[in-house]
């Protein structure tokens, strides 16, 4: 079995709960205890209300495609064998947007507004990535 050669996420104290959640097949977001707003980025303070209390909560894992790009140039050595590959921007039902890959569809089937849902892919023994597939 060949080693995973794509870049891996940088896990730090702030985003560790996200990556641990993904490992357990949960897509978690930080929810502010002050205003109830969700945020993807693990900032310490809530950009909406300034509140400093937030908890990681599991989301629906559902969303829609906001936009997307198809990479024909392999900027990363590890992606060389996969061009052209897609990167999609998903707007989660809870509000925040995140970039990811769409699986289970051809690149020419991707459309803005397409409903999608989270799937989880163990890429190394330690790391799982959340990707999305067409909902339904």
């Amino acid at each position, binding site marked *: 079995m060949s080693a995973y050669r794509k870049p891996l996420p940088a896990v*730090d104290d702030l985003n560790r709960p996200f990556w641990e959640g993904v490992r357990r097949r949960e897509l978690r977001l930080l929810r502010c205890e002050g205003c109830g707003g969700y945020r993807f*980025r693990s900032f310490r303070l809530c950009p909406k209300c300034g509140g400093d209390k937030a908890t990681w909560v599991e989301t629906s894992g559902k969303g829609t495609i906001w936009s997307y790009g198809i*990479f*024909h140039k392999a900027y*990363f050595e590890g992606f060389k064998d996969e061009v*052209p590959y897609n990167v999609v921007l998903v707007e989660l039902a809870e509000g925040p947007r995140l970039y990811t890959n769409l699986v289970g569809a051809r690149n020419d089937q991707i459309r*803005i507004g397409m409903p999608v849902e989270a799937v989880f892919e163990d890429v190394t023994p330690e790391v799982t990535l959340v990707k999305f597939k067409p909902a339904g």
Partner: protein
Amino acid sequence: MPDLERLKRLRNRTAIVGVGASRQGTFPDLDPYTLAIEAFRSALDDCGLVRGDIDGLIVQGPGGVSFVRMGEMLGLNPVAGATFDIGGFATGPLIQYAALLLDSGICRNVALLYGNASRTEGRRFGGETTVTPGREYSSAFYYYGLTSPGAASAFQARLHFETYGTTSRQLAAVPVAQRRHAALNPQAIKKDSPLTVEKHQRSRFICEPLRLYDYCLINDGGVALIMTTAERAKDRRKRPVYLMGLGRHDTYRHSSLPNYLLWRETMPMAAEMAFGMAGIGRDDVDALMIYDSFSINIWFALENFGFCKPGEAGAFTQDGRIELGGEIPVNTHGGHLAESYMQGWLHQVEAVRQLRGECGARQVRGAEIVQYICRGNVASTLIYRN
């Protein structure tokens, strides 16, 4: 909204009096400082000042070109020096800062120096070397293969295409127009490489839907501007080009993600500010210099500054409307797509040369007002008059 009444007092109070450009291309023996200084010498000569007259030093360039080091090399001890750490977005804001230094009396003559050796340094605009976790603007989600400013523009282009029914073929009109302009510009790197819509359509995708010719050049070069107050400008060698209006608007929301908005939340406010300060309307503008790291930027500028309606830039940019002789010529020097990638600085040089009537075959007849526009989460604009 800014205090427009107060801002109007800054109208025509400062001017660009000297412009200079180094050689543009690939120069393995030269660094950004050397290139910037080559341009600086030419700008000093252009306006008839000497190095010792400069008491404000603004320096910019990719890879952290330092005003302190530049000042050391030039033997300058100015009243004020500065760099803004926002890459290509900085050009408009730095010229605005220079205007404030001058109008306030802090400085008498400000030099703005730009040096770029990206080609020689092998600078990458995507991939491993640009992944900097913690500063995620250009590298968020890199583990999905997302990277490069071009990809961010590709997401925006896709959003525009699917929302408004615009196409890559329509977008081709932008690089085609700019190559035509470059053919009339002796300084343009692509002066001998014409482009057609068909050639654009046959070219390879980099990040689809953007193709090779939708991407800017990467090359080496330097640019310099000399600015002074309106009173002092009259004593300089050539006709002053006055800063008539300026605008800026930022949004920091979503700044840690690559661009995916069409800049409706920044550019229209910057436009309103600049037109309000200058006391002119869009119809008064004779040419536009638009920051064009990617062809799609032209559409965002035209739509968000009201030169056409949102969603209509695809149709608007057809039929030579943005070419010399058209309704509103855009990037008459060729811009980043065809002249040289100097992050907006040569756009200022072209604005000045157009307003002085120095542009020869690519001269916009009777040009009196030229506007610079840069898109982004730090959107900025400058309105110049002669």
